[in-house]
């Protein structure tokens, strides 16, 4: 054992102190805790100057149901993020074959057979609104579930910590390494960790740019140096920010940078689930020796396993804290210990404030998931979702806009007739070329012409996923124009697909000098 020569604080025997038979007592203090016992200016993490040092948190690997759930969430979310741009979808000739593509150049978002054009961005807005409301609902039911399991910051930090454990070992080995001198072993382990983090960052940034351009093409361009400066810039930004935020900054992001925890404070109430140490059951805490009775004392053996696994560096036994992202790793850690000492699980568990209070008084209170707050969020989500679904289902793959000329409103022709002009845009949201016929009806005797076409009834070809702008002139002979008894006469422009059932009508008007 080379560790005997280490001058650091940690000695092997530190790890041999037992909180209970077979349960090591961790030599750990929460790096963030109430300072009531100490003068404010003399506390750990609180220097006498105007800054606080970033505390080093060595979180121990937890094992249990919640840890497994977090692994699964990480696998699924990162899997989707990294692999989605590589999935293909055949849209036919001349169109991108990427399943999910944010096509900036053509101002549209492609997702399978769905195309969202720039002017239809409200679909995305609707999705964001639903997401926000879902976040409200989940928070009011089960607290910071988003922070604890699904937030990218949490997921990537978790991944970075896993990589760090792979190279430098779990908590104790990692601390010994950090306390020890700069040996060759330490140098290569640290280097390997940082290189791994940067590679993860590179993959993350790479995956991001793939969402905006054909992934295989861009991947080749990135390697051969032919990609655009923008692609490289975003690759660099996201590589660096993933490395910085996930690898280095970690909990600092949640505590100091993220506004969401503060907002969530407004959504929690007495009935929201949150992770708590049941002090009614746990106190008074004390180490437990073999053969000792459990009567007259709490179940907490003060082993500090919950503190050792905490990625935020707090002691959950101090109650609800701003730093707690409710990742539930302390539940796993404590359950493991309770199993070992033969006490029931759930000393640290998901519970509600109402439950905590009622248990202090005696009987246990049930969960109240259905409350005005959660009903409201659910109803609003349902309404928004229904509106969105309705808009999506009733959405046509043909869009027509008609803009009548306004300057001049009408043109007097040499024969005394009146002519109006209309700019018609036909949007073909289909991924196949289509042919349309344009018709203007409403006044007898109107003669229509389309600029660039010999015949007003000529078929108009619109390419796949394309827009065609047409100029349509409608002229009314003198006698018919004289018969118009209003300055504005309603007319209808109909765009019908040749050999198809789709058509769109737009009401507009024919302007004349009037009676």
């Amino acid at each position, binding site marked *: 054992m080379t560790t005997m020569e280490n001058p650091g604080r940690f000695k092997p025997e530190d790890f041999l102190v037992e909180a209970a038979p077979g349960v090591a007592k961790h030599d750990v203090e929460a790096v963030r805790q109430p300072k009531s016992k100490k003068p404010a200016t003399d506390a750990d993490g609180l220097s006498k100057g105007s*800054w606080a040092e970033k505390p080093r948190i060595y979180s121990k690997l937890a094992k249990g149901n919640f840890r497994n759930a977090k692994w699964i969430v990480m696998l699924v979310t990162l899997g989707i993020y990294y692999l989605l741009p590589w999935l293909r979808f055949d849209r036919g000739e001349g169109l991108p074959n990427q399943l999910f593509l944010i096509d900036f150049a053509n101002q549209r978002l492609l997702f399978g057979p769905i195309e969202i054009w720039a002017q239809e961005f409200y679909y995305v807005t609707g999705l964001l609104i639903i997401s926000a409301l879902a976040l409200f609902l989940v928070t009011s039911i089960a607290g910071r579930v988003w922070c604890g399991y699904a937030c990218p910051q949490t997921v990537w930090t978790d991944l970075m910590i896993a990589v760090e454990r792979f190279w430098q070992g779990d908590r104790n080995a990692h601390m010994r390494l950090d306390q020890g001198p700069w040996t060759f072993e330490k140098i290569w382990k640290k280097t390997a960790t940082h290189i791994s983090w940067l590679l993860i960052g590179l993959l993350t940034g790479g995956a991001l740019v793939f969402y905006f351009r054909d992934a295989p093409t861009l991947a080749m361009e990135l390697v051969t140096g032919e990609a655009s400066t923008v692609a490289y810039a975003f690759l660099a930004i996201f590589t660096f920010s993933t490395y910085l935020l996930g690898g280095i900054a970690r909990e600092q992001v949640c505590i100091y940078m993220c506004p969401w925890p503060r907002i969530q404070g407004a959504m929690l109430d007495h009935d929201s689930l949150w992770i708590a140490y049941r002090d009614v059951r746990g106190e008074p805490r004390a180490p437990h020796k073999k053969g000792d009775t459990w009567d007259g004392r709490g179940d907490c053996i003060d082993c500090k396993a919950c503190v050792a696994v905490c990625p935020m560096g707090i002691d959950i036994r101090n109650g609800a804290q701003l730093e707690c992202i409710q990742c539930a790793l302390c539940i796993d850690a404590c359950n493991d210990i309770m199993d070992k000492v033969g006490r029931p699980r759930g000393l640290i568990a998901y519970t509600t404030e109402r439950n905590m209070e009622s248990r202090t008084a005696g009987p246990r209170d049930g969960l109240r998931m259905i409350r005005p707050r959660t009903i409201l969020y659910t109803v609003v989500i349902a309404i928004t979702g229904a509106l969105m679904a309705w808009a999506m289902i009733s959405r046509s793959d043909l869009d027509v806009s008609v803009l009548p000329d306004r300057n001049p409103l009408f043109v007097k*022709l040499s024969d*005394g*007739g009146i002519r109006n002009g209309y700019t018609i845009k036909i949007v073909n949201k289909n991924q196949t070329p289509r042919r349309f016929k344009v018709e203007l009806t409403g006044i007898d005797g109107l003669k229509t012409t389309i600029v660039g076409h010999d015949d007003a009834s000529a078929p108009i070809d619109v390419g796949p996923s394309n827009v065609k702008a047409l100029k349509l002139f409608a002229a009314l002979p*003198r006698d018919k124009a004289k018969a118009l008894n209003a300055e504005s006469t309603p007319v209808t422009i109909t765009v019908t697909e040749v050999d198809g059932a789709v058509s769109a009508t737009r009401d507009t008007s024919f302007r004349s000098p009037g009676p």
Partner: protein
Amino acid sequence: MTMAGHKHIDEVTGVETTGHVWDGDLCELNKPLPKWWLYVFYACCVWAFGYWMVYPAWPTLTGYTQGYLGYSQRAAVTAEVNAAKAAQDTYRQAIANTPITEVKGKEDLMQFAMAGGAAAFGDNCSGCHGRGAQGALGYPNLNDDDWIWGGSVEQIEYTIAHGIRNGADEARNSAMPRFGLDGILEPAVISDVANYVRSLSGSEQVDADAAGRGKATFAEQCAACHAEDGKGNQEMGAPNLSDAIWLYGGSQEAVTQSIVTGRGGAMPAWAPRLDPVTVKMLAVYVHSLGGGK
């Protein structure tokens, strides 16, 4: 502990407060900033100083600090404009090499010419002809199908390039005699001719007797240019008097005034002011407004 600090410690957390008290008991804990936050702040300050050094930053009495990079937004815009012009070069070259009658048949050139023509029209022509080319009294409406000097795209191009009655030899030149001012016709005769002219386009408020009297005078004085039937002559720039469009108005007074003064508006030549491709694009644009022949 000295009294100099007047430190107030929050009882629950043991943390010093900022010293301010709101609503009698509400204090703010004086938590220190994270060290990294402070360093980032200092780095931003340094960055700001660097920025002042390399970019234009501070106003001085007579100008501003230029910065070591010599950056100027004006120069950047000029570069961007030049880049945009260079990007247009292929299209402009293609339009220059394409006969004007064939531009319409080439979709990409047509699209470019229409956009370029519309922009040039707004800059150069809309002052007289209006933003929508709708014209005004004395300034022709370019949307209609009545053309004094011809409505083919080549004729329009020529008119734009050389203008009308602007003194140049190449300009479209025509002059109608000042029948009243120069005493060629008596006022009563002019009134008769005006009635006749208005009858040509089927006006309902015409004094039929006067029109009948004016017919002979018209054949004698006007038909040489405006033709026997009053349909005019585009070669000579003589307007069609039998249609429904009146450049100077179709009332008895307006037509009388036209015969008395001879009218004759002028249009500048644009060939000396605009490059040939722009003139070509303008012609294509005007021709496509609806009345092109």
